[in-house]
């Protein structure tokens, strides 16, 4: 910039006409506009760069996964290592069970905590619990796996689906609690006042009037959490462990899609790699579908407030 200034100054010294100062600005303008253009292009480039990975991942998962995807994949148990055929049925069943368990365990706590934050805690209490919820959201999922290991696996003496479900519950709690908090905040205060003025006690106002008004948003948030925990691998490694056979017992090791994808992707066999892509396709389709739908709903709700 300073060199531009001196160059302009030199021109100014050489001219005495009344239009000179404007010309200086004009010269600077050219340079400034060039900088502006360059930066605009760079920002646009950043946007392009950010989107490319998503497209690449989705394209490859589709291209590699579709050919290997068939009904047998979802209904058969794995064959012994290296043998062709077989499927990931234990993982499909296991993911459904453990995600269900995690949701059942975590959601009530999360919704109630969200209610406490928004409806009961005063300013400072709300800030504190919100902070704790955010802290919990920021804890690495592998550490949550270690927690479930120490809390459930060690006392029970074996890896189990229960331990996996507990780990997933801990992960879903902050997601659902935050969404509940936000969605309750969207219900106008006048609705609560109307209920109080009728002599309806606060808890009943919340349960019968405020919660129903926020229900769509909260359910959406729960689905968002479900999509998130369905894709978790790290917290299941030393809790649910994995299982080659379909198991429905909560006290036994259980398989899960992400676990199976990890094992197959890092294994040496081509047939495993193909099944890993196909299983990824199933997982990505499910997670993306959930995420897209829930985000659309949540976005609309949040935008409606603004």
């Amino acid at each position, binding site marked *: 910039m300073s060199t531009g200034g001196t160059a302009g100054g030199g021109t100014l010294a050489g001219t005495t006409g009344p239009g000179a100062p404007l010309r200086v600005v004009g010269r600077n303008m050219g340079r400034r506009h060039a900088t502006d253009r360059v930066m605009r292009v760079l920002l646009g480039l950043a946007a392009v760069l950010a989107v490319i990975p998503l497209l690449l991942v989705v394209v490859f998962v589709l291209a590699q996964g579709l050919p290997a995807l068939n009904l047998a994949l979802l209904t058969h148990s794995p064959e012994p290592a290296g043998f062709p055929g077989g499927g990931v049925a234990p993982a499909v069943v296991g993911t459904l069970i453990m995600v269900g368990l995690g949701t059942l365990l975590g959601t009530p706590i999360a919704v109630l905590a969200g209610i406490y934050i928004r409806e009961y805690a005063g300013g400072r209490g709300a800030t504190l619990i919100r902070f704790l919820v955010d802290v919990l959201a920021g804890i690495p999922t592998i550490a949550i796996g270690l927690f479930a290991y120490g809390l459930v696996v060690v006392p029970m003496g074996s890896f189990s689906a229960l331990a996996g479900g507990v780990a997933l519950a801990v992960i879903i709690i902050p997601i659902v609690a935050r969404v509940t908090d936000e969605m309750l905040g969207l219900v106008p205060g006048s609705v609560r006042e109307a209920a109080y003025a009728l002599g309806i006690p606060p808890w009943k106002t919340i349960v019968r009037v405020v919660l129903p008004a926020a229900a769509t948003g909260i359910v959406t948030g729960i689905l968002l959490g479900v999509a998130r925990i369905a894709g978790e691998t790290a917290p299941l490694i030393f809790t649910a462990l994995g299982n080659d056979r379909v198991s429905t017992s909560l006290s036994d090791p259980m398989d899960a899609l992400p676990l199976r*994808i990890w094992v197959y992707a890092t294994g040496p066999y081509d047939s495993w790699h193909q099944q890993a892509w196909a299983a990824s396709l199933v997982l990505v389709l499910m997670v993306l579908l959930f995420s897209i739908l829930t985000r659309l709903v949540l976005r609309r709700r949040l935008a409606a407030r603004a």
Partner: protein
Amino acid sequence: MTAAEFEPGQVQRVLARHRPRRGEPIFRGLVVLASLTVLLVIAGLILVIASQSIEGIRHNGVAFLWGTTWDPVHSIFGALPFIYGTLLTSFTALVLAMLIGVGVALFLVEMAPPWLAGPLGFMTEMLAAIPSVVYGLWGIFVLAPWLRDFVEMPLHDTLGWLPFFSGNPIGIGNFAAVVVLTIMILPTVAAVSRDVIRAVPLAQREAALALGATRWETIRIGVLPYARSGILGAGILGLARGVGETMAVTMVIGNAPTISLSFFSQGYTMASVIANEFTEATTDLYRSSLIEIGLLLLVVTLLINAAARLLVWRASYSAGSRSLLA
């Protein structure tokens, strides 16, 4: 005639028989209990992981933090290769993710027309929805070979004399881990930055525009100074995410406990050594040492997160609850 049945005070008498009694204290108790559970879970996490790592802490001592040898067979546990690998990959990825993420955020808020900003923002958010293990799978079979052939090989041939690009490029290694981590941190950085930038008052921009500033100058003078602390917070949140990220990194970093400056070298991170070796840990001491790494990871991420929240708090909680989607 309805009126004939009407008796003054009838409804009030019915209501009097339905006076609320225990509902309020019970419900209040429930929600307080749920909130306490959140607190208990956090406390429990620290306590359980700490207690499980006591054996390792006793055996390994403080030297755990700078020991460079990880030899479970001889019960020598030094965590430095993992700490180094975590810091190297996270910080490099953070720098890249900040450049791209803040750029996307500025593009979305300051430049993009609404028809573009909506879908584009949506797609950045969706980056966070793809499961980590799928990034890992993609990293192994697509990203790593591509990096090897089109990035690492040329770099090796031209700049191989630099320590960063020495060694034999095979795709799997620190570089692939950095790229995958960048992709995974990006949505966090972009979403939080976007909220923070959006929260900058319009008046700041107008003041700059009224001085005849160009678009970029407006951003530089009117927007960035006000969003600085929030963007810094976004970066720290991204860092916490990167440090704790496990699967994708584990799958592409090569899992070798070496300390090397080279991006082509294989490495190991704290999270990935736990994921990889935990179920193979044959002795209690081995397992406990792994959990000790987990304890270290937990403490580090807790500190990073707390710092980030304190920085971002005001900017993102009120202005953009959208960041909860990231």
